């Protein structure tokens, strides 16, 4: 069963409605599948939300999951991609004691090597930020640990699908299917008198 598992990034375009996060999350938890990372954000289209979900599963399982996600009424479209089909980044923050950095030049060099940027510098601590792939941000943790790393946090993955043309065109396709204005009026509308008899 373990064979064929690999990292997949699932991208979901949805309406921006309360409760949808839960509806999507339980599709994974019901099948006892761990979500490695989950990000929700606006998308390139106003009013359309974008979920980026990372899981380790076989393609067969991921395909089925994506269909279950797409089946949800408020989901417009869901895609899945292997890691080489996307451009992705994660952001990480590191809090280290300022005196350690000030005293040890080596630390500063290290940070520069990793492309880290100081976000806040205070007398007692400094917060650095890097963006990059998991291995890179993880490596910096290991490197900083001997220098008294106080806190570390990493964001969920955000990813751009290399082959995607964006959702503007797709949305137009969806909206094209909107039927005309042939809508049946309430037949009781003219008979309100009967309804509100008291």
């Amino acid at each position: 069963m373990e064979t064929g598992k690999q990292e997949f990034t699932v991208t979901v375009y949805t309406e921006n409605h309360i409760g949808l996060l839960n509806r999507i999350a339980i599709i994974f938890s019901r099948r006892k599948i761990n979500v490695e990372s989950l990000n929700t954000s606006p998308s390139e289209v106003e009013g359309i939300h974008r979920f980026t979900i990372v899981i380790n599963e076989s393609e067969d399982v991921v395909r089925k999951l994506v269909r279950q996600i797409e089946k949800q009424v408020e989901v417009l479209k869901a895609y899945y991609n292997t890691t080489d089909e996307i451009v992705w980044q994660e952001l990480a923050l590191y809090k280290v004691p300022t005196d350690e950095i000030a005293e040890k030049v080596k630390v500063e060099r290290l940070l520069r090597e990793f492309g880290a940027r100081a976000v806040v510098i205070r007398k007692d601590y400094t917060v650095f930020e890097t963006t990059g792939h998991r291995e890179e941000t993880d490596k910096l943790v290991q490197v900083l640990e001997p220098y008294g790393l106080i806190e570390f946090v990493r964001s969920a993955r955000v990813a751009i699908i290399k082959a995607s043309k964006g959702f503007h065109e797709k949305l137009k396709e969806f909206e094209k299917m909107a039927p005309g204005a042939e809508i049946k009026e309430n037949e009781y509308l003219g008979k309100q008198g009967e309804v509100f008899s008291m």
Partner: protein
Amino acid sequence: MSEGITISKPAQEAKTKKAGNGAPQQISGSVAVLEAFLAEGVDTIFGYPGGAIMPIYDALYDYQDKLNHILVRHEQGAIHAAQGYARTSGKTGVVFATSGPGATNLVTGLADAMIDSTPVVCITGQVFAHLLGTDAFQETDVINITTPVTKWNYQVTDATEIPEVLARAFYIASSGRPGPVLIDITKNAQLQQFKYEGYKRCNYVRSYRPKPIVRKEYIEEAAKLINQAERPFVIWGQGVILGKAEKEFRQFVEKSGIPAASTILGLSALPSDHPLHVGMLGMHGNYGPNVLTNECDVLIAVGMRFDDRVTGRLDKYARQAKVIHLDIDPAEIDKNVKTTVPVWGDCKETLPLLTELVQQKVYPQWLQRFKDAMKQEEEACILPELNPATEQMSMGEVIKVLNELTDGNAIIVTDVGQHQMVACRYVKFKQSKSNITSGGLGTMGFALPAAIGAKLGDPKRTTIAIIGDGGFQMTIQELGTIMQFGVDVKILILNNSFLGMVRQWQQLFHDKRYSFVNITSPDFVQVAKGYGIAGQSISRREDLKSALQAMLNHKGSYLLEVMVGKENNVFPMVPQGCSVAEIRLK
């Protein structure tokens, strides 16, 4: 869930509004709910009042001549009744329940409707919006509780949303692959007066694709496979009934000449005596359809979802066959069984396209295989069941006599267990929407309330609820509903004094260690009598026919208890974990 409620005065306001001449008027959220029902053609509501839904019930007081409200005895009864109603009427069932326990009591029915694709709209009351999340009296997070068991759900906290949200609810519940929708309305929204602009039915939701686009190339490919096949086999499910495609399906089967077998929920879509109807699939289905699944060369699945009870062991299921799967739900394609040709779409549209392309054929030798298998099954299982040599009656012989008396015209509602399998195996159906049962979820206690709804959904037909002694006691309180509303339901209890199906498994797979399957029942006839329902109990074969006739002839509801053999088993049977080819005849 009634409770001590402090009556709030705003409830009175809804009634005082008089209509203007077409000009937008002020109405309450509660009235908007009922207006939506009328516009959607709702005539029957199953419900139970309580604190958080009182404004809606207050509004309902003035709508009693237009909306028939059936007061059930438990909210689970309400939703099962709505399911039964939906299944016989082809319309959407509607339920009212209050917040908290009222809403949580719906969960079993929602799960049942979800897995059996039954269109139901449930309206639950909720505490005032300002009390949400405060652990207020009878507050429960019903939206999150019901998310996995609803096709869609939504909480309304502002009355102005009600017309649009309800229009969506009815559209989503009934379109595409149908399912349950729950709308939770806070009490303030029910009371709130707002400018009512009228009700517009919904037929489009941007993010929702009820029907996948039909792809002609797949239809052509499917037809090619069928035309080349030597041993094609059609298996169909409830999709044919839900798609109202019985005629289209029959034309497809008749032109193609392919033998066809049904899932439990597909039964009655094709008359039982149709020459190409070769029986039922599944764990307790017929011998031929199971065994020959693994011998056909092309398997054509129509509106069914390859449930594990149908497929048995999946890695030994129809491996030799090319599979064509027609389904409206794209998520069903390749879910359990890999498809050679997927035919996405509503089978009412796809079947005629396919019928046009398939050649008119007959498969006499192949069909003979099914007949031979049926002969084998008859000798081993069917004849002993229908004409038992035992002193005690069998469930099968009760069904056999019932068939003779109803001539296949009754609506048969079954519960869950041995009696369900026996009924679905042996009842002869003549028309569609005649078999109402809890297929996917296997909900004991389903039959009695579902039969109430089934009768109201198609009042002209005789409705018979066939129930075991165990399941009957799970929702026995609905006898009160039958009594109060005079619903003409014939209740046929097949009493073997056991939880029979579990007992059968304990006998076969647990060395006869009968662990808590021995169930004691009250005097059902006396219980029914307490509810003003006539009835009798029989245990002698010679009384069977006259007793069934008396039940059918009786004006109004009637309870007939038939004592049957205690340790009879249902066969054939595909033991769990076995392939369909390993089906046991004994």
